């Protein structure tokens, strides 16, 4: 693994953006272009800011620079029998900064928690080119607002992430997958109840009418739990989970538009045409569909959820539009970190940046 502290150069790049009022797109490995990119002309890369800053396995904490490849970090943790508990997608070339900025978590999310759950602290640069440190390397810390967790899933719109400290956990000693066939493709009720069973379930999904349940933990607990659950042990099915995590299963290879719809696991079947895959016990629903974005956003909102469009087309809406108080407040929050919209303008909820665009248009015309 390359180790290089590029803080000074990154801070200088943001300072220059600040001084010249010119926006920048923050980029790591560029592996998630299907989640959009900012509307700036120039790009600042975090790829030279790499390496593990601090890793003490018995502390269950790792601090790592944003440009570090997720694959490198995963390898280093595995060498010590540990892992990132939120099972981040391992897209080719992905950096830890990108994973956290996008707030991505894998199939284990409803059982062991999300990316933000495991973040303990960050170092970052805000829109005034100030170098800031929030949180730390310890599990319990209530000093100041939790600005660290706020960065997770903010798509870099609040600042450039330099380093993050995360809680890590031991790799489970043993793992198996149970497979069974449900009566219908919409019957996800069984996986929906698994979080209420005191069993070491770490993933539950349904594709078509095939139901997959993963158990992880001590061998003795996993084997005992397998007997209490529906389905047969299928060692071939172990490969299903990485494919689901990275959206590399055949299901995701579609000519239609891919949507991620996040709802309560017990939300009803949504009235949208297309092909469905239920992950997260039914709380994360993948949909390949030709329905209009408005219809999809409306269907998600109707059950208290939200939708995200995957794909490289940056002309259409990608995130569930926010309105009213939620929009006003979050826009002000973006103001508080990046008043001049230097970071990734227009990428994350363009409604936060709309006035600025108008302002810029006015100035240029």
């Amino acid at each position: 693994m390359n180790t290089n502290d590029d803080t000074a150069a990154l801070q200088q790049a943001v300072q220059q953006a600040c001084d010249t009022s010119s926006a920048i797109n923050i980029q790591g490995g560029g592996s998630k272009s299907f989640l959009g990119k900012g509307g700036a002309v120039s790009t600042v890369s975090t790829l030279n800011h790499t390496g593990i800053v601090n890793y003490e396995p018995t502390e269950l904490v790792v601090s790592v620079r944003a440009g570090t490849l997720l694959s490198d970090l995963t390898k280093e943790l595995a060498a010590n029998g540990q892992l990132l508990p939120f099972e981040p997608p391992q897209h080719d070339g992905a950096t830890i900064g990108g994973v956290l900025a996008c707030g991505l978590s894998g199939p284990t999310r409803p059982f062991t928690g999300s990316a933000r759950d495991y973040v303990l602290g960050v170092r970052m640069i805000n829109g005034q080119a100030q170098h800031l440190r929030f949180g730390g390397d310890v599990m319990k810390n209530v000093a100041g607002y939790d600005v660290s967790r706020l960065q997770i899933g903010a798509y870099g719109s609040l600042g450039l992430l330099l380093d993050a400290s995360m809680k890590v956990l031991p790799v489970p000693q043993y793992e198996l997958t149970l497979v069974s066939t449900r009566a219908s493709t919409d019957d996800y009720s069984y996986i929906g109840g698994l979080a209420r069973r005191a069993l070491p379930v770490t993933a539950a999904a349904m594709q078509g009418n095939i139901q997959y349940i993963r158990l992880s933990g001590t061998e003795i607990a996993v084997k005992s739990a397998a007997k209490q659950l529906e389905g047969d042990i299928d060692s071939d099915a172990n490969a299903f989970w990485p494919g689901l995590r990275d959206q590399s299963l055949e299901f995701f290879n579609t000519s239609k538009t891919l949507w991620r719809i996040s709802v309560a696991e017990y939300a009803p079947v949504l009235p949208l045409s297309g092909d469905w895959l239920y992950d997260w016990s039914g709380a994360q629903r993948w949909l390949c569909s030709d329905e209009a974005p408005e219809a999809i956003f409306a269907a998600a909102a109707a059950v208290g959820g939200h939708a995200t469009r995957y794909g490289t087309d940056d002309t259409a809406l990608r995130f569930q539009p926010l309105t009213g108080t939620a929009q006003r407040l979050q826009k002000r929050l973006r103001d508080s970190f990046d008043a001049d919209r230097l970071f990734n303008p227009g990428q994350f909820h363009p409604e936060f940046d709309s006035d600025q665009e108008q302002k810029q248009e006015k100035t240029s015309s």
Partner: protein
Amino acid sequence: MNTPISVVLDNASEESDSQQRQRCVDGLSALLPAGLMLSSAEELKPYESDGLTAFRKTPLLVVLPETIEQVSAILKWAKTNQVPVVARGAGTGLSGGALPHEQGILLGMAKFTRILELNPEHGYARVQPGVRNLAISDAARPHGLYYAPDPSSQIACTIGGNVAENSGGVHCLKYGLTVHNVLEITVVTIDGEILKIGSSGQDCAGYDLLALMHGSEGMLAVTVEVLVKLLPEPPCTRLLMASFASVEDAGNAVGEVIAAGIIPAGLELMDSPAIVAAEAFAQCGYPTDAAALLLCELDGLEEEVTEQIENASNVFTRCNASKLHIAANEHERLLLWKGRKSAFPAVGRLAPDYYCIDGTIPRSQLSHVLKQMAIWSDEYKLPIANVFHAGDGNLHPLILFDSNIPGELQRTEELGSKILLLCVEVGGTVTGEHGVGVEKINEMCVQFDQDALLQFHAVKAAFDPQTLLNPGKAVPTLQRCAEFGAMHVHHGELPFPELERF
């Protein structure tokens, strides 16, 4: 000679206080039904402090709304009239987060005590903010479920306060803090707007405001409803107690048990002074000859727990444990916990006064920090007892002193400062779980630099530009950078002495 002047000043401010009070009463009377306001001196008295009784202030008035709409009306009025508002739950907090503002309204949420919905099938409870932490688990238990975070004051503290402080508990190493167990909250902003934050699903659109709200100490908005996650009760729970001849060995054993891939549900360390005091207080069967004691709780499926107890025992033996003991039954398990949970009042009997510190450190620094504290303890001739949430690095050194000896309080404060500074120095924090409130506001200046503090103020301004919500708490102004503080307990008189303190 100065007395007359101060009397004159006091009278002047008193007069203006009563005018202000009348203005608030008149204004709010027009918006609220009768009987929701307290404004006489004797009515205000019980609200003058929270669990940190060293700080006391009398609010202009106390308002006890009954509906979300009333909370909204009160906040809107406060904003229009530029009156500060301090929200309060059960008032059990240890850092003065609910200390009233003398020119402000104390917004008591004590009437919001209903569990609105408990859904065992889908594993959630929708509750009002004044519902007590333990009441949620009590209601869920018949369904085999519980609410995981268990702060020590859980029989009295309320869920609204838990959100404001991001409360933990002895089981947070495995089950997380409040932020990990709340799905959605409803808040009222200072503009009187009602907003849902979070969702019934696993995430929501936009920024993660749910994370930001947790631990924000009532500075950003007022929580009026909380949707919490309920977990299945583990089928089997067992407690392993290990004694050690040195604190270093015990600290090392904590790291080794985690290195072995075991995540205990709870992992607590006590040093000799704490063990002796707790045993004298609770007669729970602690080995009083040990230099350090570990309580290691494991839960899960029975086969798994049996195996892990054996693994943990082997690790402790390898780490020079002088004695191992597994609680024989549920009665003994609870008794062993009782000793740990009564450590604060137990230590309180050893000296007229003690200071409690709430720093968190990386576990690898434990030995170093304990050694340094022992050196300083000798140097200052002030004994220190240590209880430690070893699993997550949260250290509670209790400095014993006598405030009747001239200068001893001052020396204790100085020693406390040194210890907190050391916590920050080794990569930790000045507060792991008790919050900043008013108590540790000065220490924030050491932990955060000027730019970070300014960013905190900018976040606050996004929600509350006039700083009317809980002004003066949690984040210091740049002008305010002085010395450290710590919880001062006089003659063992803990606020809420009936509550367990970890």
